[in-house]
């Protein structure tokens, strides 16, 4: 290919115009096409996934409509299906998990971003990333054999004695239930809160901290009243990310939640989550209505995580891409 050496800028070079055939079959175009096909393959797979979920849940959607989301019963014999117990269980366990994981994760992130030396900070973050890599079924294993007996014999009775007047802590302590599932989930999502919060905290420019210190603030005050608020949008993003992860967790939850589609105020009560019921009942749902009700649950889960992830990434992007960020109004 002859290149005339009068290229205007270093990144483009002019060449004689090629024939149409050459343009369509030149090496670059083929490469472009192949990589485009790869990218399009992903789009195709995703579209197929959404399509399958939509089509296979059609029977349940048409039969139950919106009442699916507020019906309490899940009765395969009578063919009466409602998503409320599972939504409730998913929300409860995720709420407990966030209540534990967010303070823990943000606190640790503050330590790593503000106090620790860079070396300590990066090695501890390394360890936290390893924690995120532990498979869910291992958490389930530890949950069933370690946490559940501990909850049943020690923690739940202790909670009942001290806080038993609250409806949250009433009822027999089986060991398994919303609280146990929430605790296991919390340990699983802490690394996500930690690593994202640490990043957004580090992204807050130094002059913010120095200005606060110059005005006489203690290190804590500078952190809590200046740095964290500047990063709070990103921290919210990390919370959404962790929440999305918690919603979809299947194995660890189904091993410790009790697998009972009941709605109860007490955290000690057994319950069910969307992911857990899918794992337990999907391989054996006889009858098209049963199957499509389960798939509708899967669709709900998919949409929930979709929205949450989208929001999370938006928030994180907004915070970390801010150059000299000022406090948001």
């Amino acid at each position, binding site marked *: 290919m002859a290149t005339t050496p009068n290229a205007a800028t270093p990144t483009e070079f002019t060449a004689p115009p090629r024939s149409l055939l050459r343009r369509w079959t030149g090496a670059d175009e083929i490469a472009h096409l192949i990589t485009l096909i790869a990218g399009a393959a992903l789009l195709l797979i995703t579209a197929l996934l959404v399509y399958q979920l939509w089509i296979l849940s059609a029977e349940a959607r048409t039969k139950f409509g919106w009442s699916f989301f507020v019906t309490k*019963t*899940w*009765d*395969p*014999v*009578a063919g009466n299906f409602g998503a409320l117990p599972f939504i409730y269980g998913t929300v409860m366990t995720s709420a407990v998990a966030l209540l534990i994981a967010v303070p823990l994760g943000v606190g640790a992130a503050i330590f790593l971003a503000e106090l620790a030396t860079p070396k300590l900070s990066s090695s501890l973050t390394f360890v936290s990333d390893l924690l995120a890599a532990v498979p869910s079924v291992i958490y389930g294993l530890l949950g069933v054999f370690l946490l*559940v*007996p501990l909850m*049943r014999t020690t923690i739940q009775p202790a909670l009942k004695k001290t806080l038993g007047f609250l409806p949250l802590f009433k009822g*027999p302590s*089986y*060991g*398994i239930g919303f609280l146990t599932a929430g605790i296991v989930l919390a340990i699983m999502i802490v690394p996500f809160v930690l690593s994202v919060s640490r990043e957004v905290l580090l992204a807050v420019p130094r002059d913010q901290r120095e200005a606060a210190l110059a005005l006489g603030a203690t290190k804590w005050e500078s952190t809590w009243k200046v740095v964290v608020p500047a990063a709070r949008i990103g921290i919210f993003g990390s919370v959404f990310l962790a929440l999305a992860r918690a919603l979809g967790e299947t194995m660890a939850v189904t091993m410790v939640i*009790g*697998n*009972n589609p009941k709605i109860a105020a007490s955290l000690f009560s*057994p319950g*069910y989550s969307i992911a857990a019921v899918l794992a*337990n*009942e999907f*391989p*054996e*749902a*006889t*009858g098209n209505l049963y199957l499509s009700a389960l798939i509708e649950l899967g669709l709900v889960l998919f949409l929930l995580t979709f929205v949450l992830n989208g929001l999370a990434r938006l928030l994180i992007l907004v915070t970390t891409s801010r150059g000299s960020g000022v406090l948001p109004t």
Partner: protein
Amino acid sequence: MRIVKVLSLLAVLLAVATFSAATGQVLLNAAGATFPYPIYSKWFDLYHTSHSNVQINYQSIGSGGGIRQLLDKTVDFGASDGPMNDEQLKQASVPILHFPTVLGAAIPAYNVPGVQAELNFTPEALSGIFLGKVTKWNDPLIASANPGVKLPGDDIVVVHRSDGSGTSYIWTDYLSKVNPEWQTKVGKGTSVNWPVGLGGKGNEGVSALVQQTPGAIGYVELIYAIQNHMPYGKVKNSSGAFIKADLASVSAAAAAAAKFIPDDFRVSITNPEGKAVYPIASFTWLLIPSKFTDTAKRDVVKDFLKWALTDGQQYCEGLAYAKLPKEVVAKEMKAIAQIQ
């Protein structure tokens, strides 16, 4: 260059894995009930040892799962302790044949702190417990059947199946027969709307939960309680006697039904007449399609069935399952011819 090396390594790995399928092997996949899993797994293992080119891979996912996978045709045959109902049979593309294999019993296994004795359960007590009306171990309904046993005031933790289960079918079938409230409120089925309780997956899961939870009671197949050293109770039968599940009482339950067993072998033997019968016993069935496209598989299935109904039966008693009555075996051997 490195890419070429990596790719050729991958190609070799792929080839090895693909061609590791030995020729002449007949591989069958089956799924279903956890109720007979201990004996099925022993049978399939023994059969593989004597016929080394045959591998029958049985996955215990629950009777509901077995039926569904059979209907979806993702397995070659299924297993269930709740016979398929007419609606399910209609969904099958080829007629499905039920073949009883062994007799088992669903027993109430419990974990009551401080109680090692065998407890007696009346039908009222059992249905009250599972309806959620009887909530403490020292409830009069339980205590009156167990004079002399000191029952604690602990809460009863009910454990049931979280998956579609033939064992659930047997249990709810029995409760429906002895308690009209259960019949209307809950009904019988492989998967019901349980009023109370924790859910365990498979007989395995229920056994595990009962073992680990003080105050728990759950229904499992007899061998699970025996293998895991769990105490289990006697149940009062229709003649008023408290019977413990064992080979004699379970066989007695089947004996009466054996003479009148229908041609399709679908029959319930819960709560039968008789003095020494155990009231919550049941056949368990292999669900075999009547037409096979693969003749090698069909021949293996027929041969295995014949073996299981004759030689295989000698292994039942070691695992606390009762053998099939002779009349039933004879009838089944004739029915095997229906598999084409």
